[in-house]
């Protein structure tokens, strides 16, 4: 079931070693940077920077491609539809009935598409280099209640298993002659129940066993749960965080305080 592979890839790069909290903040800061930048060129620069980081994180080609598939579609949709709905600016390139296509609108569409590309890919840096366990631990360290963190950890733990269960159910119903594409809304709804019903019952059975396991392992015995390996910021983490902050603050000040068009 390679499809339910974690996006995370084991490796030993500086991005893997970075404190997950620093990575979360850096991703948020770089996302904000994508909104601060308004020029196509500077956004392309940011996108290249993100891809450089992905390269340094030794992101696997197949995983990047899988993740990019959905984003690229959305980017294409934005770039194609933007000029159709935005008649402002000159020169006008074409008029088709009520639709006016202008050159600046085309550039604005491409700019927005590239920005969405930046927002999407910057997440990969976090997801490709941080294990789910570290991610949940970082969120708990950042103030997420432990029981919510545990709920999240359980969700991530069971996601691939339920993915396979879903595929198995879909196969089992197809083997009984069920066709997804056939019929009206009502017959289709019944078909969805044929797939989701067994999945839910399987999940509820899992939940019953799981709650027993949690109880028997003294879940909730202490409110301040301790960890074997605590998260601790190192010098390198502070340097990385400072760089990320500078990357946002410098362009933001340049644009908003000194009105540099970037």
């Amino acid at each position, binding site marked *: 079931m390679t499809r339910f592979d974690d996006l995370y890839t084991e490796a030993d790069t500086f991005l893997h070693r970075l404190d997950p909290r620093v990575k979360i903040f850096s991703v948020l800061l770089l996302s904000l940077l994508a909104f601060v930048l308004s020029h196509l060129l500077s956004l392309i620069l940011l996108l290249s920077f993100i891809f450089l980081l992905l390269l340094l994180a030794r992101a696997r080609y197949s995983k990047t491609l899988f993740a990019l598939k959905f984003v690229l579609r959305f980017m294409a949709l934005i770039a194609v539809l933007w000029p159709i709905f935005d008649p402002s600016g000159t020169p006008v390139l074409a008029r088709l009935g009520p639709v006016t296509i202008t050159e600046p609108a085309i550039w604005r569409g491409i700019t927005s598409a590239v920005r969405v590309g930046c927002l999407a890919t910057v997440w990969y840096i976090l997801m490709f280099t941080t294990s789910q366990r570290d991610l949940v631990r970082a969120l708990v360290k950042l103030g997420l209640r432990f029981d919510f963190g545990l709920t999240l950890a359980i969700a991530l733990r069971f996601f691939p298993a339920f993915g396979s269960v879903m595929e198995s159910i879909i196969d089992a119903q197809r083997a009984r*002659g069920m066709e997804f594409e056939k019929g009206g809304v009502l017959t289709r709804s019944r078909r969805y129940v044929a797939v989701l019903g067994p999945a839910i*019952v399987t999940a509820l059975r899992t939940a019953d066993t799981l709650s027993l396991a949690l109880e028997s392992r003294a879940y909730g015995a202490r409110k301040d749960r301790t960890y074997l390996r605590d998260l601790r910021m190192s010098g390198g983490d502070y340097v990385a965080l400072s760089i990320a902050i500078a990357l946002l603050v410098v362009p933001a000040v340049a644009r908003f305080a000194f009105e540099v068009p970037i």
Partner: protein
Amino acid sequence: MTPGGEPGESVVTVDGVSFSYEGGFEALVGVSMRVRRGEYIAIAGGNGSGKTTLAKHINGLLHPSVGRVTTCGMRTDETSVANLARKVGYVFQNPDHQLFCTTVEEEVRFGLENMDFEESESAPKAQAAMELVDIVALRDRPPFTLSLGDRRKVTIASVLAAEPEILVLDEPTTGLDHHDSEHLMSTLRALNRSGRTIVLISHDMRLVAEHVDRAVLMAAGRILVDADVGAVFSDLELLREAKLVAPPITQVAHRLAPLGVSPSTFTPSQLVQQIEVLRGGGG
């Protein structure tokens, strides 16, 4: 309910099939085999040997990357799974992955509805299928409240209702106790006697040895051997290669070989018979 056609004619032909999953894992490598009408065969192998992948090619759930599969005269890559479902009943390993109706009878009729049978036709077909596996008494019960053995029977009835020519069962005795397991196997034997072709997917060699006529042993996506069970179980080396363990009786027979016991012994009664003959000969 007896399917038509000549016995002995090939109903499944797998011809030079290779298959890789998304992500590149090669699950089948150059597999060729055939199943004849009325046969009772097992596809056996350890975890990851490709036995389930091969079985899913029979009803078109998977299409070969290389080669071709023909089931009941239809190329599986040119026919819909729904169409093949009329010919091949596929019973999945975990009954909880397919039961969803609120009564057993509804569940048994679900496949028939998919195949657009009229109410007047589907009712007697469902009745006959429930009779075959002996669950008529459970017809109004919610399937989820039944025991695992009964749930498995419901899934078998639900594919039998469409009167398929071939019945494929993936590890049907998983989680069943000895009694339920034997009961299920005798039901399958009876179905086979009434003319149905049965393909059993299993890693349980005792089950294969005692119930099946022919076994296809698989390992690492390849067929190691395709022969009568007697021949398969006389070769312990081969079984080891397939990461399988010979049934205890066969292991005992191998050790008793110097005394004159045949190494292709695989049921208790065969062993007893041979020992009796040997003792009779000696005294």
